[in-house]
């Protein structure tokens, strides 16, 4: 991988890594609150671990071939591996926290393993670690292929990938040692947040510069979504994380937003993290790998336009549905509710567009589990967005809010949509990247598929049951118009469902582990000598796009 870089590129990579290590050193030295110091050490180790291979190959022969004549796939390969590693970590933490709710003593009386600290390691680990790496890797792949051009940088893709993973490591390791802002899905502290801004800006510039090299003047839909993902996540992240540290040498900061305004900013962020991280990015994935795998044209270009702009515009109004009946003024809640319902139209338009694209390929769906992953993902996407719009209606939310119903909805989207589309895409991508004819074992993909489906269904049915029971128990009145159940009564009723959910999650985790094995064996397999189709950028003069 380093042999693909020129000497001066290796130099600049080393320079960046040394700079990062120095920052780590400063953090370690001046972090009087020892948590910042711990993170300083982690930063140094991270930088050193990357510096070692770069320095040891710094005088290796330079690449001789014309790099522009091939796609830049090394960062994608590493991104896929990282995504799968984070998937196992994040899902393992998910199963663990699920088990803790059923058997609380699984925290073993330690600080780092209490539910409140582990839960964000699951959410951040899985959303940012697994989801984010998968998005970065696939966006690098998609933007090159749809532009028929190589990535517009040699070092910057690595910077984006590893810089991003440094953020994830800082975030997740922080929760274990008690570094958190307790802002849901934005728990990482101020210095990690700042670092992410640097990484993200690089990502955006790299993406835009690569797009500028495209051979087809029109930008493909998948890239619209990836762009929306990158841009809007940047907006959300910066605004929600504005904070003042109590000292440069301390990990602790206070967000600038107080009380009710913080609540609105937080859920404007939180909801749209769902929209632009967990939805737009993965729609980008869907728009590339589904038609490629199905070998069908997209059902409707016009529908794509409608759903894209609908999603970009409507989603941003919907965040206040997380705050129904709270101290947030009523008028904002009405806006959140109505826009959430209007949002269902573009959401279903996307799901429909995906499913209708499969017309003419249903026999493939039956025989090819990889394509079936993507088909099922589109179905769960339709299901969870319908559920979401339904939950956003105030009277429905009166019942569902604060209960496991929300958690069930989350995982219908997270397992059924985000994870399934990712696995489908990865199974499509891996043989292409490593130039293999196909995945090592089609049977194992089948196994993975059915474990994932079973796990998802058990999970969401358990949570629908527990959530609705919980919500009803909280508000049931006796014939004498007094409340019928105490809170602990409802807690006792949850235990069977918590056990079922942990089991469903375990199935899902086993499926993912099988997926890792399958990928590993595919990578290990001997390459087929001749790639089936030529997979290289067009090096002819670019068609002027802009």
């Amino acid at each position, binding site marked *: 991988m380093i042999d693909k870089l020129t000497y001066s590129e290796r130099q600049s990579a080393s320079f960046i890594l040394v700079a990062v290590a120095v920052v780590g050193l400063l953090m370690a030295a001046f972090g009087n609150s020892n948590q910042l110091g711990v993170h300083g050490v982690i930063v140094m180790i991270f930088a050193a671990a990357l510096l070692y291979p770069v320095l040891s190959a710094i005088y290796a022969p330079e690449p001789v071939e014309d790099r522009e004549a091939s796609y830049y796939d090394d960062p994608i390969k590493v991104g896929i591996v990282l995504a799968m590693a984070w998937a196992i970590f994040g899902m393992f933490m998910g199963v663990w926290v699920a088990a803790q709710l059923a058997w609380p003593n699984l925290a073993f009386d330690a600080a780092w393993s209490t539910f409140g600290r582990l839960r964000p390691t699951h959410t951040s680990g899985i959303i940012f670690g697994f989801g984010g790496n998968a998005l970065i890797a696939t966006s690098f792949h998609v933007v090159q292929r749809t532009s028929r051009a190589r990535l517009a940088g040699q070092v910057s893709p690595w910077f984006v990938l590893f810089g991003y993973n440094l953020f994830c490591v800082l975030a997740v390791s922080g929760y274990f040692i008690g570094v958190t802002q307790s802002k849901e899905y934005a728990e990482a502290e101020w210095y990690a947040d700042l670092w992410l801004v640097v990484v993200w800006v690089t990502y955006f510039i790299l993406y835009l510069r690569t797009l500028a090299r495209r051979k087809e003047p029109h930008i493909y839909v998948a890239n619209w979504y990836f762009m929306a993902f990158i841009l809007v996540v940047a907006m959300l992240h910066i605004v929600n994380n504005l904070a003042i540290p109590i000292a440069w040498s301390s990990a602790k900061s206070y967000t600038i937003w107080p009380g*009710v305004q913080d609540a609105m900013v937080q859920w404007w962020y939180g909801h749209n993290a769902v929209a632009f991280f967990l939805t737009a990015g993965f729609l980008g994935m869907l728009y590339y790998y589904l038609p490629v795998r199905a070998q069908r044209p997209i059902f409707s270009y016009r529908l794509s336009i409608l759903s894209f702009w609908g999603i970009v515009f409507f989603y941003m109004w919907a965040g206040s549905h997380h705050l129904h009946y709270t101290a947030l003024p009523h008028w904002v809640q009405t806006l959140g509710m109505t826009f959430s319902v209007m949002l269902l139209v573009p959401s279903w338009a996307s799901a429909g567009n995906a499913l209708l694209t499969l017309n003419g390929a249903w026999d493939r769906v039956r025989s090819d589990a990889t394509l079936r992953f993507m088909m099922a993902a589109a179905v769960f996407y339709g299901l969870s967005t319908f559920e979401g719009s339904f939950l956003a209606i105030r009277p429905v939310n009166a019942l569902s809010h604060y209960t496991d119903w929300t*958690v069930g909805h989350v995982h219908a989207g997270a397992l059924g949509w985000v994870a399934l589309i990712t696995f489908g895409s990865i199974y499509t991508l891996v043989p292409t990247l490593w130039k293999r004819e196909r995945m090592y074992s089609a049977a194992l993909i089948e196994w993975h598929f059915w474990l994932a489906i079973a796990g998802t269904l058990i999970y969401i049915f358990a949570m629908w049951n527990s959530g609705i029971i919980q919500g009803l128990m909280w508000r049931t009145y006796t014939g004498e118009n007094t409340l019928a159940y105490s809170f602990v009564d409802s807690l006792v009723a949850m235990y069977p469902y918590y056990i079922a959910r942990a089991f469903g999650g375990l199935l899902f985790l086993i499926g993912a582990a099988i997926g890792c094995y399958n990928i590993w064996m595919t990578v290990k397999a001997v390459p087929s000598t001749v790639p089936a189709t030529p997979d290289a950028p067009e090096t002819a003069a670019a068609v002027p796009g802009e």
Partner: protein
Amino acid sequence: MAELFHRKIERSSIGFAIAIVAAASVGGIIEIAPLFTIDGTVEEAPDMRVYTPLELAGRNIYVREGCYACHSQMIRTLQDEVERYGPYSLAVESKYDRPMQWGSKRTGPDLARIGGKYSDFWHVAHLMNPRDVVPESNMPAYAYLARTPLNLNDLSQHLAVQQTLGVPYTDEMVENAARDAYGQAVPDTDFASGVSERYGEATQVRAFDGVATQVTEMDALVAYLQVLGRLTTAAYQNTAAPELPPEPVE
């Protein structure tokens, strides 16, 4: 027409990016900015007091431990919640909360009005091991809080940042933050009187964790739990809420 237009912006990545930012900005601006300008968004509450340094430290432990993952601090405007937990929460009650901890999941009950409901002794026992007092509970044990001395050194910095952000801490409060935190949890010292002087007579000064010689994280967290819902009586006024603010329990 529209379609033609789209074919055009679809050919320009910069144009497309600008269009995305424009379309995505509207919702947030219209929903967030007016929260700073519309009258009554945050209610008037002249009796609202700030957190003492000990309570703020406790709040930071609450934040650090991620209690929000299981507990809300927001009683919604619904009959059953008002009847179970007390008067619905007002925006003003969290106006000094950075970040707010309204929560999104109730694995455990709402805590917005937990202050004064139980004894310190109960809270300590419960946090040491919830199943000792509530056998059905799935809340984790936080015994290490009682073993960990509270870090008082940087409390002045905490208050100073809050002051910058508009929380009405006086310079005197900022300066005495560590002393006040110590005094609030160690009642029989000279430091204790300063707490009531600066933060009001109603401030609860006592050995929250039952040990009057040392200030632990347990002291801070319990002090915070015992003040939840009691920074102002605004929620009890002009509402159909049947109750009055609870008296402190020793």
